[in-house]
């Protein structure tokens, strides 16, 4: 069991209402779990609880059986690689320098990077297809390249788990696919991943399990088939949504179709 | 682990602090005729092994022993320079401050810069076997540094007439010119006594000493100038203030109604008339022009020529009585 939340509640200090209310969920090892839900549902808060950045005010949040917030950051960083949101980088670090930071938990304070560390770094760069860009400044990279760099840095940490928060926001389809593919490859090789994403259809394609959050509560958890259902999604997103099973030219999957209220025949507001 | 580190850190910090407090001995210097001892090692008492060894204690508690009189003296005190020349030890002077102007022979002695924050380097380069300087926080670093190098240092206070006589005596003893020193002291006492006898007969005038006006700074009871004013037959309206150079306000001056204002002028410096100062006409002395200008140079030097200074003050204070018979002019004997 990688992560486990038990009836976890959390409220931010300056806020009136709780961001998470009594969420209980297990994220097993070796799976790719996607966390989806509307804005403000509490997805990022959930991730922070999983990582131990925040401590639940009630209930528990465990990583490998121990409260996540109790884990020394260094130990956590050796096991969990994080690809967070965050704006475009401002620090003119080189890509390789950026990725090398992934080795921080392993390197002793006054010591330089060792051979093994360098090997991990070049391995990570290769996996993320960044070898050509290694000596460029990260500020010069495109959005998709920056995300790949963050992923490479996470790889350099040699983690067993990846946690990604909106890794493909603002990315075009090619870059989106790249990221999801890399994560899927990671999981196939034996790792686990937790991805927070807006992209329902990619979550449905790539994830093994989905957690649907709404207003701080866990609305549904299970396989994509179980969670991506029209009635559940429409209710949670407060917008009519159709889910269509797709089987086209060998591509199987679920197609999530938001309805255009004014136009589409079945769901038009005007009486016909 | 973290606690242990913190304890260690604090312990280390405090041990360095304590180390800093402890004093450390210095390095040897040119083998000089004198040895230096610190006050902690005890006063010499009656310790002269040979007749010739002279012990002198300064105002920082250090005692200096001289088996022969110093040949290369650096004086960082203009008064000490004058005294040395007066008692005939001018030849032994090899360094003076840049302000030493008297006597004229002093300008032939090389200057080593400031007296108050002296350049240790300049002093040392004169290879002195005695350095005389002001005792005080500004010179403390220098006197410590010089002592560490092994140069004998006499750090003296020089703020009152008593200090003047004490320093004359010290310098006389150190240079082996005791009798000349005694004569100089006696001459000064006689001169001052003579002036006092005359001024006693004259009516006492209340005086405001205008040392500076922006802000108004005068002299208080703690300054030797106050005792000079008394000798000269005046009464300093601010003598009740202990500080040597207190900063006062126009209102405070007006409240004390000084009958005259003493206005020192220093060589080369232009001072604007007091009547130009806005608001000062509130003082009767200003309105009625009872402002006595005098040569500030003479008065400010607490040295062998101090009697000249008192005469100058007396002349200024009793300017309207100068026609009286028997009034001493500068340098003359009392009839």
């Amino acid at each position, binding site marked *: 069991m990688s992560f486990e939340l038990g009836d976890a509640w959390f409220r931010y200090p300056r806020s009136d209402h709780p961001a998470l209310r009594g969420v209980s969920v297990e994220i097993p090892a070796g799976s790719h779990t996607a966390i989806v839900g509307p804005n403000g549902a509490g997805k990022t808060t959930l991730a922070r609880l999983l990582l131990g950045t925040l401590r639940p005010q009630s209930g528990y949040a465990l990583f490998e059986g121990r409260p996540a917030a109790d884990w020394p*950051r*260094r130990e*956590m*960083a*050796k096991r*969990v690689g994080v690809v*967070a949101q*965050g704006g475009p980088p401002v*620090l*003119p*670090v*080189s890509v390789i*320098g*950026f990725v090398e*930071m992934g080795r*921080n*938990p392993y*390197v002793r*304070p*006054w010591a330089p990077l060792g051979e093994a560390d360098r090997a991990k770094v070049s391995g990570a760069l290769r996996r993320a297809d960044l070898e050509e860009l290694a*000596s*460029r*400044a990260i*500020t010069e990279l495109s959005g998709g390249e920056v995300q790949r760099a963050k992923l490479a*840095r996470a790889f350099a*940490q040699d983690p067993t788990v990846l946690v990604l928060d909106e890794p493909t926001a603002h990315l075009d389809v090619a870059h989106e696919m790249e990221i999801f593919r890399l994560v899927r490859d990671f999981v196939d090789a034996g790792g686990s991943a937790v991805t927070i994403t807006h992209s329902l259809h990619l979550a449905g394609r790539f994830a093994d399990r989905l957690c649907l959050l709404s207003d701080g509560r866990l609305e549904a958890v299970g396989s994509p088939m179980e969670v991506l259902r029209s009635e559940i999604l429409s209710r949670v997103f407060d917008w009519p949504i159709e889910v269509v099973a797709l089987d086209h030219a060998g591509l199987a999957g679920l197609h999530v179709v938001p309805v255009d209220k004014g136009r589409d025949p079945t769901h038009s507001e005007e009486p016909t | 682990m973290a606690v242990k580190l913190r304890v260690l850190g604090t312990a*280390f910090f405090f041990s*360095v*602090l304590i*180390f*800093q*407090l402890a004093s*450390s001995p*210095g*390095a040897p*210097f*040119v083998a000089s005729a004198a040895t230096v001892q610190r006050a902690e090692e005890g006063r010499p008492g009656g310790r002269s092994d040979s007749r010739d060894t002279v012990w002198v204690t300064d105002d920082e508690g250090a005692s200096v022993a001289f088996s022969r009189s110093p040949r290369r003296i650096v004086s960082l005190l203009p008064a000490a320079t004058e005294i040395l020349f007066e008692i005939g030890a001018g030849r032994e002077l090899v360094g003076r401050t840049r302000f030493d102007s008297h006597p004229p022979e002093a300008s032939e002695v090389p200057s*080593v*810069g*400031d007296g108050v*924050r002296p*350049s240790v*380097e*300049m002093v*040392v380069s004169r*290879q002195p076997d005695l350095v005389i300087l002001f005792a*005080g*926080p*500004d010179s*403390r*670093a*220098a006197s*410590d*540094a010089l002592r*560490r*190098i*092994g140069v004998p240092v006499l750090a003296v206070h020089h703020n009152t007439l008593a200090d003047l006589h004490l320093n004359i005596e010290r310098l006389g003893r150190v240079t082996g010119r005791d009798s000349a020193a005694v004569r100089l002291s006696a001459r000064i006492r006689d001169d001052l006594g003579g002036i006092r006898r005359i001024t006693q007969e004259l009516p006492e005038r209340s005086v405001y000493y205008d040392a500076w006006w922006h802000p108004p700074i005068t002299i208080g009871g703690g300054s030797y100038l106050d005792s000079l004013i008394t000798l000269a037959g005046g009464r300093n309206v601010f003598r009740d203030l202990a500080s*040597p*150079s207190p*900063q006062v306000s126009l209102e405070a001056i007006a409240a004390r109604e000084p009958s005259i204002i003493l206005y020192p002028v220093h060589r080369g410096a232009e001072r604007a008339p007091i009547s130009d100062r806005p608001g000062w006409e509130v003082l009767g002395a200003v309105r009625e022009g009872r402002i006595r200008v005098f040569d500030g140079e003479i008065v400010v030097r607490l040295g062998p020529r101090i009697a000249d200074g008192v005469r100058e003050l007396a002349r200024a204070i009793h300017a309207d009585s100068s026609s009286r018979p028997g009034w001493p002019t500068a340098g003359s004997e009392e009839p």
Partner: protein
Amino acid sequence: MKSSRSHAVGLLGLALLLVVAMSAALAVGPANLSLPEIWKALQPEAGESPARAILLWVRLPRIVAAALSGAGLAVSGVLFQALLRNPLAEPYLLGVSSGAALGAVAVLSLGLTVGPAGVGLAALAGALIAIATVFRVAYAAGQLDTRVLILAGVVVASFFGAGVMLVLTLAEGRTARSALLWTMGSFGQASWQMNIALAAYSLPAALAAFGLSRHLNALALDEESAAHLGTEVERVKKISYLLASLLAAAAVSVAGVIGFVGLVVPHAIRLLWGVDHRYLIPMSFLAGGSLLVLADAAARTVAQPLEIPVGVVTALIGVPFFLVLLRRGYARKPL
């Protein structure tokens, strides 16, 4: 982009610069010793002489003190800029200098004959009180909020600054001047004893700061990412604050307030060699030391035998140099 080779060259070059600066500083001074004289006097076989005394007991202590202080101030600047995420942060922003000034000025004004070591200790005490106060205010619920830190620092600095002004107003004229001169910064009080204490504080602190380099690099991204990379953010912030304050306090207690080094040196290094703290810290250490050694040499020779405050020189040298660097543009130099 700057390779690690260019970093190595930079480090070597700066180390060389420090050595050259120290040697040059040893060769200049009011005593005007010629190079052959200096060379001869430094030989181990050479006996005691004024030249040797000047070199080893007057100049060298100052040079070492300047090097250590400058190095400490520069590293302190790097740490504060990392901690506060603000390129304008400098060691004296958070009340260290005001606290130290109050301690020193208070002791000087009380007229206690404690000597420069005592003044230094009082300064250190004042600095530590200021540091502790700011820390107390900004540290709540296990977190060091950097915005509160800046505000608290500025406010505490103003408070102690007001205290300094109060003491100066009430103090005797001469003490006020010496207190003021102290605050302007000078290495005239340097001694080997003080240098040992200074080294004992500064060198371990600088070394510890260097050990934090990777974490500081991570913090430069943002706090949450740094935590994900294994950095104990609160602990690193606390340690950085304490190290930076200690370095600044040690420097201030030896030499008074010398601004500018902590602000400008880190920026100059960043402009030339990038933002990686693993190089930024050692390079700032060397560059800061060189700058202050040269500044002190200039301070004691340009108007010799008078000495101008070192802080004035660092500003006069530092500002034009820095403006030139800025004009060349903040070139994007990746790590």
